[in-house]
């Protein structure tokens, strides 16, 4: 038996090779292969994004070969399938905006009030029941909310507000309200997270100065959590911009003219894509290409909003952790 050299750890192995270094006995190709495979899985997300961009770009370019970008972005007539086709995207952008604004008018107050209640006022047990209940609302499929909006909310709106000039069975404003219902949980849960991450030292300081609970909530916790709250609202808005089924089912097929009336039937960008794609359209026609042009615009809009929201969320997370 050779004497153990100082570099040895395992005496059994040292019996054969007294100068074995501390590292792995042999290169671990299996480990490297696994790492490469896992990296491939992660890189797939980049591949998906690239694929999205490629699949959007090519037909979009062929679309803009026939329609000028300025006509597309500033035109006020949207009638791609007609004999005298018009490609001004503004009417469907207006539809999207009406939906988004209405949805935010519903979801922001309700969501924020719920968040303040859950984070500052609710007893622990109440919170444990209410939070999953709100999560259920988030999990309801959009088709269900679309059907509910079309068959329940829209007639209800006419009963409650009979003096308004409702036209036909569709209304883009009611679609917005239904989308609002859909995004309440998003606003509530992200802003609640932001408010709960405000250190309790701030609250205690304010209480020590004699503040009431309302003052602490509104003047201390709310401002301290503001970037998280704004991020929640931006994410909710981006969700509303991208929502399809509800707008398709409640908003109707719309009018090619640019109108801002929430009582009327109108189309949003997503609903146009969904409606056009359900019909049989041939590859290479200009109507097929419009899907991609509108899709590109939608992608760019939501991407910008998401980037902004992610930056805000990251900033508020960095502070107190």
């Amino acid at each position, binding site marked *: 038996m050779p004497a153990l050299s100082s570099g040895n750890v395992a005496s059994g192995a040292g019996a054969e090779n007294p100068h074995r270094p501390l590292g792995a006995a042999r290169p671990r190709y299996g*480990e490297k292969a*696994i*790492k490469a495979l*896992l*990296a491939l*899985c*992660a890189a797939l*997300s*980049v591949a*998906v*994004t690239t*694929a*999205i961009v490629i*699949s*959007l770009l090519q*037909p979009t370019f062929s679309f803009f070969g026939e329609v000028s970008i300025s006509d597309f972005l500033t035109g006020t007539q949207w009638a791609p399938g007609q004999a005298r086709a018009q490609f001004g995207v503004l009417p469907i952008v207006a539809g999207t905006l009406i939906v988004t604004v209405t949805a935010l008018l519903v979801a922001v107050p*309700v969501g924020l*009030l719920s968040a303040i*209640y859950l984070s500052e*006022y609710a007893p622990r047990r109440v919170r444990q029941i*209410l939070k*999953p*209940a709100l999560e*259920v*609302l988030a*999990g*309801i*499929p*959009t*088709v*269900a909310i679309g*059907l*509910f909006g079309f*068959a*329940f909310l829209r007639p209800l709106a006419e009963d409650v507000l009979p003096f308004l000039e409702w036209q036909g069975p569709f209304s883009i404003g009611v679609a917005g309200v239904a989308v609002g219902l859909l995004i309440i949980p998003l606003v509530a849960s992200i802003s609640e997270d932001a408010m709960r991450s405000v250190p309790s030292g701030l609250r205690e*300081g*304010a209480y020590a*100065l004699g*503040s009431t609970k*309302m*003052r602490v909530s*509104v003047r*201390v916790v*709310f401002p*301290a959590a*503001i970037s998280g709250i704004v991020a929640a609202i931006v994410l909710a808005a981006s969700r509303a911009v*991208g929502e*399809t*089924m509800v707008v398709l089912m409640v908003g109707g097929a719309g009018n090619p003219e640019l109108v801002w009336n929430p009582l009327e039937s109108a189309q949003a960008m*997503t609903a146009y*894509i969904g409606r056009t*794609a*359900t019909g049989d359209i041939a590859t290479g026609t200009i109507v097929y290409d419009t899907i*991609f042009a509108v899709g590109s615009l*939608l992608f760019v809009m939501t991407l910008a909003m*998401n980037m902004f929201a*992610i930056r805000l969320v990251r*900033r*508020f997370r*960095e502070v107190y952790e």
Partner: protein
Amino acid sequence: MSTEEKTPRVSERTRLAVAGARAASESIFREGGRGGRTGNALFFALLLLGIGIALIGLVTILTWSAVEGGPRLSWDLFTEGPNTILPAMAGFKTSILGTLYVIGGVIMLAVPIGVGAAIYLEEYADNTRWYNRLIELNIQNLAGVPSIVFGILGLAFIVRGPLSLGFVAAAGSLTLTLLVLPTVILASREAIRAVPSSIRAGSLALGATQWQTIWRNVLPSALPGILTGVILAVSRALGEAAPLLLVGAATFVPYDPEFWDGGYSVLPVQIFNYAGRPQDEFRVLAAAGVIVMLIVLLAVNSFAIWLRNRYERKW
């Protein structure tokens, strides 16, 4: 005080908070006394109103679909295919089968890829490298891309373009996989991050390789969190209709679907299809379909919540 302001932890947010606290206390001294009791009560009432509206919305949706579709609930829904002429005879059999195929495919693809990506990002990746940061940013952004854009991707890349699968269930499955992948990755990362590093250190110290450590120690500990994420992703995919409209699920399918061949439909798209027909019977049928779907989703979701509560561990 000046030293405190120089530390990087004092952000704009902290400054806002301090300003808020100061404003709060100043206003107390200005009023001098305990005014505003009614204000407090009103504010509390307002908060209750807010959460009340949210809950009433939820309850109304559930009750409405139960009242509207309840009378139509029967086994016919599961044993009959679509029927455009006789609504009384129509059911969801083929679209339920289609949903099973599509969701099965999503689970087979999204779970290994998503968990693999999460392991790479948490255990291997050096997140000071630009490419790893790019991947992270990418996943966060993908989570916010509208589902219909994934439909466009599916149409251009999977149905027609490079993959050319055609309008089959596999194309729907692949499209939905891409859609839910960010959800799986983000949830799995959270779960893996929550495993304390002492477990890894212990395993490595005993001579296990990194992969052995991950496979035998980290993954089992993170499994409940990963499963919760998977279940949430699956329930999202179950309810998703918009991207499937673009990859061919809107078709009327009177026969049982296959994975690689022939037309298919899924439950939400079939509901959309029935809801768009003019006869009232079809709308009732659609509402009954919503109930079927809600029952499945509630079961799946409460399973996820139960799982999370059951296995939630604090180290």
